[in-house]
């Protein structure tokens, strides 16, 4: 009984009890260890050692890694030999033992194992393999063993906490772990549970809401109370949970859709007032005391822009938007036969607690949104934008180290996207210390589908069919959790909201769904949606909202026994899709699922006599809700919004003085900017993503021979056509001091990026993604209003309709000491556009010595929020925020697009972070060409400082490389748009500005330095 002396940590037992798992019968568990053969490199061990040395200097003499597998089942010696030697170990490079090998004499052994109930994809694979190869059903769990030589147990455990384990989902064992049995759920008596609230007072209702993690505010709780008083009965638990999920911020965007009363307390220097909009714009009225009243903010700003642009009574109305705001993703026309859709999601709170699982399930969920668009779209590209704290930020208790967060988030997106076989083609990272408690993880997905399949409709009598993953206790309360504010104890409180995905389950499900869509000449299903936030409750609730649904919760396949009906109903277990399937097609769908190894179940039927949601468990009614109350019962109070420009100056970006190099010259500053975390190379991230899979990539994230930063991705979705789609993002968080100005800049940047690769400027669709601090604070509500109003103005000016959007509010973190860290208001604008012919696409790397460099757009002196200003030493700078001119910006974009379309532009790059000089440097080192720059030749405001010419981040500016013989033609095409020839490329290998010069290679090195040591 050797393993009796093995220790397991408190964390393990704590979580066990927390997740209500109870023991099965005692049974011997077989343990197998797989490690590299002597003489073969231990890659995992040695690279961990490298990282530890790099970080701390002091490290173990040696770190060895081994994979650990546990088997619970009737396996004889022969089976174990086969499994360990032939299935688990590679005979050329690895050895396997069917025991726990000895702990290093002068050192320790640390093991990391997933906690009970946490998805373990490797274990699922091994179970499948053993069943197929040995013909026996076993239960498997996996873990990792690390032998630290020359290290105490205490040191080993702290290394594990720093580098290896997240105790929210994993247990750390300080010796080889030998479980006596696998924790298993046991069947539990199910009873209908009522939650008495008819007679609760206001404070008691609020208390209930918080304690039950409903996160409904008082008016909402009162609406529910009134509803049940009318029904003369107490609500049942499952009904209350359904309301909480459906009415959650995450599911209904109640803040953005609310009626808002907006006033202005103070305007910072150049921030425009919005009060004059009253009575001029639909849905905007003047309140009694002069305030601006907006009835449904989202409807009358973001959505209004789209519907106005699509208004067929207006000349030149846009006819290529096929489905906006109604489906899981927005849909636009690609060509006569195909449509494109795009969705961008955030997964911030889960990523704060468990970055790897949070990011992976973030991209996974967004992929499911696209799979669930129309009658199923095929995902063809992913994008990712992260906002995190710089590695040197101070880390409050309850937050993970920022460097670990970023590495883990990248790994999560990598492992999910790559395994799904979807290229990740565009993204970015923005650093600010205020993201330390709330990292932002934006995941975008683009899909393609046949035009005739853009809309699905549930029919009465259809079966409610679920495809994909089994349901477990993971992800309970994810939707309501996103309404919570994070605190130093959130990891313990919300561990259950975090999950690990299994991408291959989802890939199989996608294959089966596409087969079900295409096998016959028409799909086997009438409608499809994904199980995201709220799980079945929102998916089925949404699909059946007009006709009702009868759901047999007991029929859902479970990961383990013991889930209550409510847990089954609201679990956000990953990789599940809900289909509305006519009875006649169920059998054929089942066959397809069997071929693809996909689990399918029939939960019930759409439509009930009184359009109700009826939830059964083995025939017993667990809950019954009126669909109309669920859909329309949510109260819509007036929200107070105050714009306080002075107060908002707190959101100007903080200094990154550490990046500042000595020397006062323009080129010293240029090198500091190139090395700035926001601007510097992201190659270490990009190379971890498969951006080639599916073989569609035309313009990749890094362009030119030397891997310079491209402006936008271009894909060719269909092999038989050279028509393409471009994908880009715009983010201008540096201007967060006024979200109105920030939003216009983000839209302009997104458009610039798309135009620079050769997109058609009249076929650009955009998406909004708000990540805000809590809007219960009227000042944040005020900045949300300003951003929304800018969405309206920007979209109309650029004629770029919003086709989909999302918001994540409450992004603030309260530390142990009670201090609240708000993130800067952050708005990501994502765009996709049509590229008529990918063979005419343009990249930003300079092509040819002798070609000239044209700067298009008027440069002004405003340096507020610029990266130059983040370097500090700003004496004498004009610190106002640069503002998009809504006449000039769109006009410039169209003119530049025309120049590119004419084929006269050898390379094009947008001047954004860091300014025009930095953009020119990127073009030069991208093409490994020298260039001589004359800043005085640029079109700019009268007598502005030379530093502003170089580093101002004035929007709506482009750099074009043009052959000398074509300059005159370009000048004609640009007509009255300000521009100047600011340089000529050459073969000198030198970057020359006035009297200063530096080797182009040195500029590239400075840019690359930002990507080192990750």
């Amino acid at each position, binding site marked *: 009984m050797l393993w009796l002396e093995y220790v397991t940590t408190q964390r393990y037992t704590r979580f066990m009890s927390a997740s209500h798992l109870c023991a099965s019968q005692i049974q011997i568990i077989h343990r197998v260890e797989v490690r590299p053969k002597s003489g073969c490199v231990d890659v995992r061990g040695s690279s961990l050692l490298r990282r530890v040395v790099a970080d701390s200097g002091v490290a173990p003499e040696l770190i060895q890694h081994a994979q650990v597998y546990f088997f619970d089942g009737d396996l004889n010696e022969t089976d174990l030999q086969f499994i360990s030697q032939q299935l688990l170990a590679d005979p050329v490079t690895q050895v396997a033992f069917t025991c726990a090998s000895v702990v290093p004499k002068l050192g320790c052994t640390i093991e990391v194992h997933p906690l009970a109930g946490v998805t373990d994809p490797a274990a699922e694979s091994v179970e499948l393999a053993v069943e197929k190869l040995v013909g026996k059903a076993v239960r498997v769990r996996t873990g990792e063993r690390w032998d630290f030589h020359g290290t105490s147990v205490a040191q080993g455990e702290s290394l594990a906490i720093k580098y290896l384990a997240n105790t929210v989902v994993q247990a750390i064992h300080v010796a080889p772990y030998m479980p006596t049995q696998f924790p298993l759920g046991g069947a539990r008596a199910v009873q209908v549970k009522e939650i008495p609230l008819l007679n609760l007072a206001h404070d008691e209702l609020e208390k209930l809401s918080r304690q039950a993690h409903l996160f409904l505010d008082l008016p909402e709780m009162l609406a529910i109370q009134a509803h049940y008083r009318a029904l003369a009965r107490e609500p049942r638990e499952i009904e209350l949970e359904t309301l909480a999920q459906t009415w959650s911020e995450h599911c209904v965007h109640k803040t953005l859709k609310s009626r808002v009363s907006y006033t202005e307390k103070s305007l910072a220097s150049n921030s425009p007032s919005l009060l004059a909009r009253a009575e001029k714009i639909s849905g905007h009225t003047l309140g009694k005391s002069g305030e601006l009243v907006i009835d449904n903010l989202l409807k009358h700003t973001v959505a209004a822009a789209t519907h106005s642009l699509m208004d067929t009574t207006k000349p030149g109305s846009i006819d290529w938007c096929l489905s906006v705001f109604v489906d899981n993703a927005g849909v636009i026309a690609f060509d006569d036969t195909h449509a494109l859709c795009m969705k961008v999601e955030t997964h911030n709170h889960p990523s704060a607690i468990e970055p790897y699982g949070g990011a992976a399930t973030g991209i996974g969920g967004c992929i499911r949104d696209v799979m669930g668009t129309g009658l199923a779209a095929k995902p063809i590209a992913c994008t990712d934008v992260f906002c995190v704290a710089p590695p040197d930020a101070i880390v409050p208790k309850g937050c993970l180290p920022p460097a670990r967060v970023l590495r883990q988030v990248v790994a999560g997106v990598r492992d999910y996207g790559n*395994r799904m076989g979807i290229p990740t083609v565009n993204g970015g990272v923005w650093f600010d210390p205020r993201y330390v408690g709330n990292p932002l993880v934006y995941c975008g997905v683009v899909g393609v589908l046949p035009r005739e399949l853009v809309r699905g409709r549930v029919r009465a009598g259809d079966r409610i069919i679920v495809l994909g993953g089994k349901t477990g206790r993971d992800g309970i309360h994810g939707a309501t959790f996103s309404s919570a504010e994070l605190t130093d104890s959130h990891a313990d409180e919300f561990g259950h909201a975090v999950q690990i995905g299994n991408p291959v389950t989802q890939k199989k499900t996608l294959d089966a769904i596409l087969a079900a869509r295409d096998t016959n000449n028409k799909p086997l299903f009438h409608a499809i949606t994904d199980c995201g936030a709220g799980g079945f409750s929102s998916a089925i609730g949404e699909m059946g909202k007009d006709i009702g649904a009868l759901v047999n919760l007991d029929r859902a396949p479970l990961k383990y026994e013991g889930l209550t009906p409510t847990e089954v109903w609201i679990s956000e277990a990953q990789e599940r899709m809900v289909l509305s399937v006519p009875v006649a097609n169920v059998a054929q769908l089942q066959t397809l699922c069997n071929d693809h190894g996909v689990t399918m179940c029939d939960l019930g039927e759409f439509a009930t006599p009184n359009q109700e949601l009826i939830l059964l468990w083995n025939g017993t009614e667990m809950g019954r809700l009126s669909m109309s109350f669920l859909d329309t019962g949510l109260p819509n109070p007036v929200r107070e919004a105050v714009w306080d420009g002075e107060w908002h100056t707190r959101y100007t970006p903080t200094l990154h003085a550490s990046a500042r190099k000595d020397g006062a010259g323009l080129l010293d500053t240029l090198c500091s900017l190139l090395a700035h975390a926001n601007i510097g190379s992201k190659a270490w991230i990009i190379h971890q993503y498969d951006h080639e899979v599916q073989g569609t990539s035309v313009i990749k994230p890094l362009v030119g021979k030397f891997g310079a930063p491209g402006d936008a991705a271009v894909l060719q979705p269909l092999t038989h056509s050279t028509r393409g789609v471009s994908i880009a993002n715009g983010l201008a968080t540096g201007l967060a001091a006024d979200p109105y100005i920030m939003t216009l800049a983000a839209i302009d940047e997104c458009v610039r990026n798309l135009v620079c690769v050769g997109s058609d400027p009249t076929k650009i669709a955009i998406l909004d993604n708000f990540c805000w601090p809590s809007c219960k604070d009227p000042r944040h509500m005020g900045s949300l209003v300003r951003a929304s109003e800018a969405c309206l103005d920007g979209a109309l000016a650029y004629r770029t309709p919003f086709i989909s959007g999302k918001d994540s509010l409450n992004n603030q973190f309260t530390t142990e000491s009670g201090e609240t860290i708000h993130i800067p208001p952050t708005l990501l604008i994502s765009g996709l556009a049509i590229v008529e012919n990918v063979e005419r696409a343009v990249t930003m790397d300079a092509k040819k010595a002798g070609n000239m460099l044209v700067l298009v757009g008027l440069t002004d002196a405003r340096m507020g929020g610029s990266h130059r200003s983040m370097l500090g030493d700003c004496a004498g700078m004009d610190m106002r925020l640069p503002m998009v001119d809504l006449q000039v910006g769109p006009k410039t974009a169209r003119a530049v697009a025309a120049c590119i379309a004419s084929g006269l532009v050898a390379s094009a790059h947008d001047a954004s972070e860091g300014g025009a000089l930095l953009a020119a440097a990127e073009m030069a080192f991208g093409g490994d060409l020298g260039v001589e720059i004359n800043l005085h030749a640029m079109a700019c405001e009268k007598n502005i400082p030379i530093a502003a010419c170089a580093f101002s981040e004035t929007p709506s500016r482009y750099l074009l490389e043009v052959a000398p013989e074509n300059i005159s033609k370009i000048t004609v095409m640009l007509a009255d748009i300000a521009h100047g020839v600011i340089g000529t490329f050459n073969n000198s290998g030198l970057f020359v500005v006035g009297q200063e010069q530096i080797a182009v290679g040195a500029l590239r090195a400075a840019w690359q330095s930002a990507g080192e040591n990750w």
Partner: protein
Amino acid sequence: MKSPKALVITAPGINCDLELSQAFAAAGAHPESVLLSRLIRQPTLVDKFTLIGLPGGFSYGDDIAAGRIMAALMRKEIYPALAAAIERGTPIICPCNGFQIAVQAGLLPGPAACSAASSSMNESMSINTRMSCNQQLEEWPRIAAAPMVALATNIGERFHDAWTGVEIPANTRCVWTHGLSFDQDCAMLPCAHGEGRFMTDSNTLETLEKNGQIALRYAAHDNFNGSMNAVAGICDASGLVFGLMPHPERFTRWTQHPWWTRMSTTQRAGDTLGLSMFKRAVESVVGP
């Protein structure tokens, strides 16, 4: 030219079957994707194809090791059908996950039956001598051989996506690569894998080198995964079975090249390296 049928074997987690089919089609073949589960029910399906592809991806999740489960299933269920196909002279390409599967399923480096006989072969070896070598290969063992080479975790630990320069050894007997030559900028292929470090014992490596069974190498400085002798791809003694970590099926159009916008139209004339490989194989079964 009548177009030969190409079998593309898919399974849960395989995700490069589409581009592989498209590459076969672009080279003039008729691709058909078939799930491994169906082949297991009906191994004789293999017989009606004259070309075979094992696509890339993450078969069955690649959670234990890349290709492990798919390889074990193929050894157990359809290895004899594949061995028979090779004896019939069926070219088989195995990019990335396909390569990882092939080396574990006993398809590569394959039996050394004609290695002695052919070790003297030099770069001038023609399709015909390859066929004559193939004749000596009637007896592929019906039990899959134990793995002799491995594709281990990249030396840098992480999954890595990059275009790498590649070189085709002059003495290779590989049907897919023999005699292909491109200038430096065009002799490139995309790689995207976490487990691609080619490893074997020194004797096997020497035999493979001597036999012309090294079908592809990474160019100097591009061996990012740390493979022995910069081996990027190998073939069996008949030259029919070709496994490689790079993805030729992702380079069948010039606009897929990472700096095609820097290339002159003359530089972009003709077939890409990837497409040329597939055309080689198609020609070898239908004649030029």
